[in-house]
């Protein structure tokens, strides 16, 4: 055998070494996470609007938009919705745009990618103009605001990426980005608008033995973020069974849905206290399909849904108010239907359906809000019965911030369901149910 053939043979032998069978728990955890993860929608082609679409929604959306534009324009005419500088004007004024003007252009034209808020009222929004995987002629920018005041703006990067914003435990914000333009880049943004670049690498990340309060937050996919350093780590770093989706409480405990290797149809929840894991199987609901959870203090609520007969129909509700010592669980369909009228997103012609995005967040630790994926918002203080909250527009995403939650909303123009819409506005919803618009850009 000559040298070249010997080399080729050795390389082939070396590359073929080992098994590539995927462990079932690896896929199961992904599929569990998929069930509560919305797909990004392609906004280049508007979704056909159903003739059966609720007229009430349309009317409310138009009214809400008018009210929102008027209110926000009054707060700050320069930054009112749709009143920002046009790209043509910006380019004419500055043939070689500075980073600041580029950021402002993206904020004016882009879609809301992520947001976060601190208890002091500062709100960070991230805007992007990339709509396709691999796009390079686009970018992401951030805006920090308090009330109607724009405090600072800046560029995150160019090219398709996944950018997420988080409130940092010590004040300010963490921005993480994963994409072509810099997979390990991020920014720490102080509440005065000062931005410092950080590495989001996980390799040197470490935490105290007991999880530090407010330090770790759940991120996109199966990752979590250290809000002090910006490190983004895969949930496998926390040990235990493969995690599907989790939520850290303010005292640092993590509650997460976990893969159940022995009984795939059983939904299992785990609690990580910084040292070890405790698991509990939730009430069997005949093949729970998806679930979302929210946790605050000793309160944890898990909504379970199933694909049939209607996608995302609520089939189980598990609640603990003593950090998991005891659970109350509801699986009776009639009770569930009256507790929280979840239903699916099957299109009027029943030809297709969307995976609705149900989001939950606590305002403080005693009031729970649920955005049901159809765009409706619900409030509960006993975590088993829910009352409807009027919000001007469809609601798609909730994030806790102290004793309130921030909700992403929009008018849903040109699309059938909130999960398929661009929703670019924010409102703050207090524990008492009052709703206040937030200037997002």
């Amino acid at each position, binding site marked *: 055998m000559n040298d070249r053939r010997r080399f080729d043979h050795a*390389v082939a032998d070396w590359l073929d070494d080992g098994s590539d069978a995927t462990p079932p728990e690896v896929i199961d955890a992904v599929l569990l996470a*998929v069930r509560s993860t919305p797909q*990004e929608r392609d906004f280049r082609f508007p979704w056909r609007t159903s003739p059966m679409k609720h007229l009430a929604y349309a009317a409310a959306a138009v009214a809400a938009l008018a009210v929102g534009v008027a209110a926000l324009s009054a707060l700050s005419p320069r930054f009112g919705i749709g009143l920002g500088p046009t790209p043509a004007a910006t380019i004419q004024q500055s043939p070689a745009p500075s980073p600041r003007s580029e950021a402002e252009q993206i904020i004016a034209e882009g879609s809301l990618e992520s947001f976060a808020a601190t208890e002091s009222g500062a709100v960070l929004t991230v805007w992007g103009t990339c709509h396709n995987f691999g796009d390079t002629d686009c970018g992401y920018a951030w805006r920090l605001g308090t009330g109607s005041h724009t405090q600072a703006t800046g560029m995150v990067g160019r090219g398709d990426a996944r950018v997420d914003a988080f409130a940092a435990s010590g004040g300010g914000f963490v921005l993480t980005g994963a*994409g072509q333009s810099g997979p390990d880049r991020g920014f720490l943004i102080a509440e005065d608008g000062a931005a410092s670049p950080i590495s989001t*690498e996980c390799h040197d990340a470490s935490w105290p033995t007991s999880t530090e309060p407010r330090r770790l937050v759940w991120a996109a996919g199966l990752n979590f973020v250290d809000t002090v350093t910006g490190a983004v780590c895969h949930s496998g770093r926390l040990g235990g069974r493969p995690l599907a989706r989790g939520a850290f409480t303010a005292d640092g405990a993590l509650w997460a849905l976990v893969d159940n290797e022995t009984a795939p149809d059983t939904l299992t929840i785990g609690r990580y206290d910084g040292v070890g894991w405790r698991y509990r199987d939730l009430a069997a609901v005949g093949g729970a399909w998806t679930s979302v959870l929210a946790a605050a203090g000793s309160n944890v609520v898990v909504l379970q849904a199933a*694909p049939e007969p209607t996608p995302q129909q609520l089939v189980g509700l598990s609640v603990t108010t003593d950090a998991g010592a005891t659970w109350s669980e509801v699986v009776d369909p009639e009770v569930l239907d009256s507790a929280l009228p979840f239903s699916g997103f099957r299109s009027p012609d029943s030809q297709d359906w*969307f995976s609705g995005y149900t989001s939950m967040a606590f305002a403080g630790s005693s009031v729970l809000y649920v955005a049901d994926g159809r765009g409706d918002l619900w409030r509960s203080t006993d975590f088993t019965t829910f009352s409807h909250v009027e919000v001007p527009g469809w609601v798609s995403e909730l994030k806790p911030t102290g004793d309130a939650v921030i909700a992403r909303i929009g008018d849903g123009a040109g699309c059938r369901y909130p999960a398929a819409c661009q929703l670019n506005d924010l409102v703050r919803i207090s524990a008492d149910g009052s709703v206040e618009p937030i200037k997002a850009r």
Partner: protein
Amino acid sequence: MDRDVVERARSGDQEAFADLAHQVSDTLLGVARRILRDPALAEDVLQNALLTMWRKLPHLRDADRFEGWAFRILVHACYAEAPRNRRWASTIRVLHTDVASDVDDIQMISDRDELERAFRRLPLDQRAVFVLHHYVGLPLVAVAKTLGIPDGTARSRLHYATRALRAAFDLAQAPQDLREGRTA
């Protein structure tokens, strides 16, 4: 790849995506393992890549291009995840000495070990081109298209990777005294 399954997953059908994930996971895991040289990290990357695919499926224009699109997402997930976890990357490899019964077996282990060490020293972008070309079997033009890089860039990355591995392989073939710098 079943085009219908891709189409249904693209429309938000989670069961279709589950089928898709099962169909592609072994291949994708194989690629990730070979690029990263760390089985546990490769599983993490596979999970993140599959979730990215789910989120971004509506942007996939042509269902027939799913496989290349999936490779591209996976490789970017490798880029994103590998540096974060460098400390965790295994640097110790278990050699199965019980099968090394003769000189050829020992030489084979030595070859693999040198290739492994040399490969770990390569930048991730060179590793990705090498694995897609030699392990998956994609022509270089397809590798370039999959990764979204010019043909010449793919060619040069493959060249540098091959040259480094070849140098390491040649070193493993050299007599022991030569490797240690002794001359007669």
